[in-house]
């Protein structure tokens, strides 16, 4: 693995919120995630890039409990969460969004978020102010409170992503996994999501997000790891990783000449 030093982060100072060691996942003959090792520091924003099929989503699935690894371990806040069920992991403080946006179709936006607030962790955090009040304020923080009583079907794509983030916030997470939050969005929508992410980081939420296109992460994310064919191939500030030879080869294919 090619390592580039000099990230914005003073390593070790903030503590590790996530430690992934030797994580491997095979689907039949295909090794989707191959001996991946990395760490996420509390409070940082970490980006994960890689071409399609690199294993980014599988990695997310493994960390959030939707898939069990063949080998390796995941530690969250020092606790081994390998093999735990998704809802258990959520209640420890890690929430995620999905690449293909999902919502509770027949519930109002407010209820969509209320569900998250009704999780054990959500109830603990928001029980005192009341579930409805908490859901309303989260809806407001993602900018959707004026449509609180409406169903998700009326929302444009960008707002659906905001709703998803809202649902994740309802569980009062310390650590947020965002799977391709910018994909399929128009420019203004991207700005909205970026603002939201910056807001969350300011409040101390650690963020780990994937992106397919590097430049949208460049300004937002101080540190990036890159995957290709299941392996981690580079780590460091986005500008340097983007110019890294191995990464370029991964995205563009081997032995290609560029004018």
């Amino acid at each position, binding site marked *: 693995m090619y390592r580039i030093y000099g990230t914005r982060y003073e390593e070790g100072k903030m503590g590790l919120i996530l430690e992934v060691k030797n994580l491997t996942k095979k689907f039949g003959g295909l090794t989707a995630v191959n001996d991946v090792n990395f760490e996420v520091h509390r409070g940082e924003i970490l980006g994960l890039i890689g071409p399609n099929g690199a294993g980014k989503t599988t990695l997310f699935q493994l960390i*959030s409990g*939707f898939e069990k690894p063949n080998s390796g371990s995941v530690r969250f806040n020092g606790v081994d969460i390998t093999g735990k*069920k*998704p*809802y258990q992991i*959520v*209640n420890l403080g890690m*929430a*995620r969004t*999905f690449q293909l946006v*999902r*919502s*509770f*179709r*027949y*519930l109002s936006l407010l*209820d*969509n978020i*209320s*569900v*998250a607030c*009704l*999780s*054990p*962790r*959500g109830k603990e955090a928001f029980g005192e102010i009341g*579930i409805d009040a908490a859901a309303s304020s989260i809806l407001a923080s993602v900018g959707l409170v004026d449509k609180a009583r409406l169903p998700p079907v009326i929302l444009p794509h960008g707002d659906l992503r905001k709703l998803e983030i809202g*649902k*994740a916030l*309802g*569980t009062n997470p310390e650590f947020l996994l965002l799977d391709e939050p910018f994909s399929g969005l128009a420019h203004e929508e991207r700005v909205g999501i970026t603002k939201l992410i910056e807001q969350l980081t300011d409040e101390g939420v650690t963020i780990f997000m994937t992106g397919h296109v590097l430049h949208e992460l460049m300004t937002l994310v101080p540190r990036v790891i890159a995957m290709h064919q299941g392996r981690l191939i580079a780590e460091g500030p986005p500008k340097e990783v983007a110019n890294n030879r191995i990464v370029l080869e991964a995205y563009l294919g081997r032995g290609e000449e560029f004018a």
Partner: protein
Amino acid sequence: MVKLQFDWESAGNRFEALVNRFVKWAFSFRGGITLVCLGGLLCLPLTGREYLVTIVITAMILAIFAASWDLLAGFAGQTSFGHAAFFGISGYFTAALVKFYGVHWFVAIFIGAGCAVIFSLLIGIPCLRLKGPYLALGTLAFALILYNLFLTGDWLGGTEGISALPNIGDVFVVFYIVAAFMVASLIIMRAIVDSNLGTILKAIRDDEVGADATGINTTVYKLIAFMVSGLFAGIAGALFVLDTTAVNPALFQPLYSFYAIVMASIGGIATIYGSIVGAFLFRLTGELLRPLAAASLLIFATILILIIRFAEEGVMNPVLGHVQDLWDKIRGR
């Protein structure tokens, strides 16, 4: 500091708030219609027409049964095709308790329903991993297992079942008892569905993976849904057996599960109150079709096919919607 005095003032305020809410509801369109229908229903025995009363009793019992299915299928997303299992189990236990152990019918109803709850766990746990069509067949298989067991086994009467249960009163008394159970059951089920628990169940129905990702332990909540549904199906089964003063393995037939689905579908899935409409329409149509005896079930099957095919929302909501529009027009809005 411990409050030693009962806080009359705040209790009084809360009561007043509740009464205000009720009055507001009573004067709204839906509330008004509900109260009128309820009133009409309760006055029925006064007409003295015993035959009609008997039919309505069955309709009310079936309404509870259909609503219990609706709760599980329409709100929790678990479409059960073996609901007759809960109906029958409770029926058998209630009958046995009343006949062989002299238990008072009121107590027997709850014990019978309790047994249905236990069975709902027994059936629910293996069915947890099943979704959609798989779940439908799995529950159907369970009901068929029970059907076979009670049909071929010697316990509790075999093919004959248990009969000649003591009467709990004359027809009119039974009417009011059943009516009370129906009103209570439906109000409770509606309250559950509107509560936080209901929101969680609806989330599981809409997107189980998503619910999992939002920290909800879907297994526990699905089982809760099964149990609540089983409880009310059990109450219906117990009442049914007490009303007909007999129980036999026929209660476990796929046909009875089918009835629940028809009634809930006609009234409108995911409405709870629609089950009343569905059950009444079902029972009354059954009476009207009686001269056609054999063809009646055929017609029902056809009706169900047509409804599922063309009118997924059922009857109650669209009709109420139209009537409300009409009413608004009349009032000149």
